[in-house]
């Protein structure tokens, strides 16, 4: 079949499916002019189409009977082998013309349609077997969450979960994060509680087949989130505590004090500072009634399930955006600030939304029925930001720099200021870092380096910056004693950079989001005489610094790279 004939067949199919545009109709007419036999074929096909239309009206012609009658009307053999088309369809590589051809083939041949359906079923079974994301557990967990979300007045999941908790109070729930870490989807669900997997699977077991897809025999609760970090004096109210102060099933929670990060199975993290009241509604949804919270949606959230929904009484945050802070007052107003990425803020009660840019704060007030612009003052988020930023702890004069703010002299005494330069990135090439043996203090001086190959890992970069107090240093003079500080991160440190050249070289790769300290005119690393020292802990989580104030025009900087995964 030549190109024109192939095109004619495609257009003919489109016409029969009422999908022919005016331009294509013209094209079809030209093709018929070139070969009158094509007009005849169109006439036959239209007659047949009318026959089909009548046949379709007849209920008795549904299903196989219909197909048989239809097949009897058409005796043509397909132009292209259907196995080839089916393979392409399964591979997701069949173009529109190919689909047309396959459909035409199936109309002509009842068995072909049946073969295609079986191939699709088989393909889906293989997909269910091969892909953890499509395992039975994953499907049922997602279904349970969806049912909970869509049946708010119904307590389908809650009822079952609470019943199981009552039945087995001593049994711990499943840690949801282990799934991501181990890359194995074996997450117990409320369904699994009620005993084993399907009867069919049981039949297979009975027949001596070792089913790889073994149900978790333990009786555990579905948790959609868990506490991944707890800082300070964390205390939950008696009625609003997660299971074992760790695991969250959909429900309401009340944090009396401390800061916790709630890590959802979807990948999002909500850091909440007590006192706060909030609801966990599923893997991708939370509601903050009161308190301060920072949501790090994490770009890992993707797929058909969509993004993460965060709501308060007064405003909702749409599914876009990366890092968002919220302050809810428990009734009619709430403040929101987008720390990273754009986001849509909506006031559902009033039925309007607004696109927000990074570092843009707003207040929603239901009483006044307005969304106000307010000054950017992120200090209220200082504690939650520290936890969100992945700083587990620090000693000495250390201060976190909030998004949108620059490191600057404290005006009182020297301190180390820590800022997140880039929340997450994958290096496009090797990064030259300074050589540092864990467990040993080393002088901060120009020395050997090594290439850090990111290997596709997501990294986060921090800048630790000694901000001077402005005093002119005099060696050995009182008051010019070393500043000692340490910062502990919640991910493994994979590279440290302190030499000026490597700091400058890595600037473009790391792409600091905030302009650095204004007085940086001559970035220098204190030489060995100054006695500045650095230590990377054995577990590669903590950086210890002994720094001397180098004077107003001298600044010590250390860039720390951690691997997020």
């Amino acid at each position, binding site marked *: 079949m030549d190109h024109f004939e192939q095109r004619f067949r495609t257009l003919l199919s489109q016409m029969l499916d009422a999908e022919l545009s005016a331009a294509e109709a013209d094209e079809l007419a030209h093709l018929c002019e070139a070969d009158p036999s094509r007009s005849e074929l169109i006439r036959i096909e239209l007659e047949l189409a009318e026959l089909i239309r009548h046949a379709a009206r007849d209920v008795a012609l549904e299903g196989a009977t219909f197909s048989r009658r239809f097949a009897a009307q058409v005796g043509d053999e397909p132009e292209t082998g259907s196995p080839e088309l089916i393979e392409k369809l399964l591979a997701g590589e069949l173009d529109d013309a190919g689909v047309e051809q396959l459909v035409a083939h199936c109309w002509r041949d009842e068995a072909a349609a049946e073969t295609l359906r079986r191939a699709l079923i*088989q393909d889906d079974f293989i997909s269910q077997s091969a892909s953890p994301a499509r395992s039975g557990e994953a499907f049922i967990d997602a279904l349970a969450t969806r049912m909970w979300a869509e*049946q708010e007045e119904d307590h389908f999941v809650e009822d079952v979960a609470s019943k199981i908790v009552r039945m087995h109070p001593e049994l711990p729930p499943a840690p949801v994060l282990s799934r991501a870490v181990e890359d194995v989807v074996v997450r117990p669900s409320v369904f699994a509680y009620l005993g084993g997997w399907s009867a069919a699977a049981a039949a297979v077991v009975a027949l001596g087949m070792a089913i790889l897809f073994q149900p978790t025999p333990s009786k555990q609760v579905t948790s959609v989130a868990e506490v991944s970090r707890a800082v300070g004096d964390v205390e939950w109210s008696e009625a609003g505590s997660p299971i074992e102060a760790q695991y969250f099933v959909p429900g309401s929670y009340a944090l009396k004090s401390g800061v916790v990060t709630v890590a959802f199975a979807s990948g999002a993290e909500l850091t909440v500072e007590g006192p706060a009241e909030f609801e966990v509604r599923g893997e991708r949804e939370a509601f903050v009634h009161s308190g301060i919270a920072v949501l790090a949606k994490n770009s890992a959230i993707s797929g058909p399930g969509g993004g993460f929904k965060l709501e308060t009484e007064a405003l909702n945050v749409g599914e876009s955006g990366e890092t968002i802070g919220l302050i809810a007052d428990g009734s009619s107003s709430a403040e929101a600030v987008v720390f990273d990425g754009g986001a849509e803020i909506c006031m559902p009660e009033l039925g309007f939304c607004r696109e927000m840019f990074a570092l843009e704060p707003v207040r929603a007030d239901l009483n006044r029925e307005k969304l106000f612009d307010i000054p950017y003052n992120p200090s209220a988020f200082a504690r939650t930001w520290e936890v969100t930023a992945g700083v587990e702890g620090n000693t000495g004069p250390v201060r976190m720099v909030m998004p949108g703010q620059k490191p600057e002299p404290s005006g009182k005494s020297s301190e180390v200021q820590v800022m997140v330069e880039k929340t997450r990135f994958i290096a496009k090439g090797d990064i030259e870092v300074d050589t540092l043996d864990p467990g040993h203090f080393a002088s901060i001086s120009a020395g050997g380096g090594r290439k850090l190959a990111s290997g596709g890992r997501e990294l986060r970069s921090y800048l630790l910056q000694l901000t001077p107090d402005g005093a002119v240093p005099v060696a050995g003079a009182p008051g010019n004693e070393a500043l000692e500080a340490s910062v502990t991160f919640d991910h493994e440190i994979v590279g440290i950079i302190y030499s000026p050249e490597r700091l400058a070289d890595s600037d473009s790769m790391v792409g600091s989001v905030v302009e650095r300290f204004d007085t940086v005119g001559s970035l220098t690393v204190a030489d060995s005489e100054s006695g500045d020292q650095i230590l990377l802990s054995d577990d590669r989580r903590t950086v210890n610094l002994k720094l001397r104030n180098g004077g107003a025009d001298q600044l010590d900087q250390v860039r720390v790279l951690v691997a997020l995964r």
Partner: protein
Amino acid sequence: MTGPTTETFIEYVRENHAGLRGFVRSLGVAPMWVDDIAQEAFVIAYERLDEFDVDRDFGAWVRGIARNLVINERRKDARRKRIIADNLTDVLVRSSSVPETEAEELGDRGTAKVAALRQCMMELPEKSRALIKARYEEDESAPDIADRFEMKAPAVRKALERVREALRKCMDEKLRLAGMQT
């Protein structure tokens, strides 16, 4: 008539989800939307649980719901459709027979087939397993797989076809040995 309880519904889901998902796919639903539609069907089934006669086949009932959902996809605008193509779904829907012939095949047996397939996959040669993993777990296209395995795309397609056929035979054999007709 008293409808089934929540616990019974949970059993229904466990027994029928694998088959229902296969059925939904067989109606020409795009792979990424299969589970979405299957879940939607279960949600609707749960909402209408009072209408369900426990003496009937739940699998057939929920397949009927899913079938209607798929038919409704035709009425959506192209951007929101979850099916591959209208005419493909037409021919597949019309060739399907929800309650009668496929009740056994796609009901409880769906889960058994998936279980059998899992074992069959473990018996595959390493490279075949890697191909299946790349295609189904990592959702790579044939050209992408070809790049990774230093093959040509048509060879990848052919290899996948052979692996699928081997899996089908293996699954059939296991079910036959188990006394289950395929």
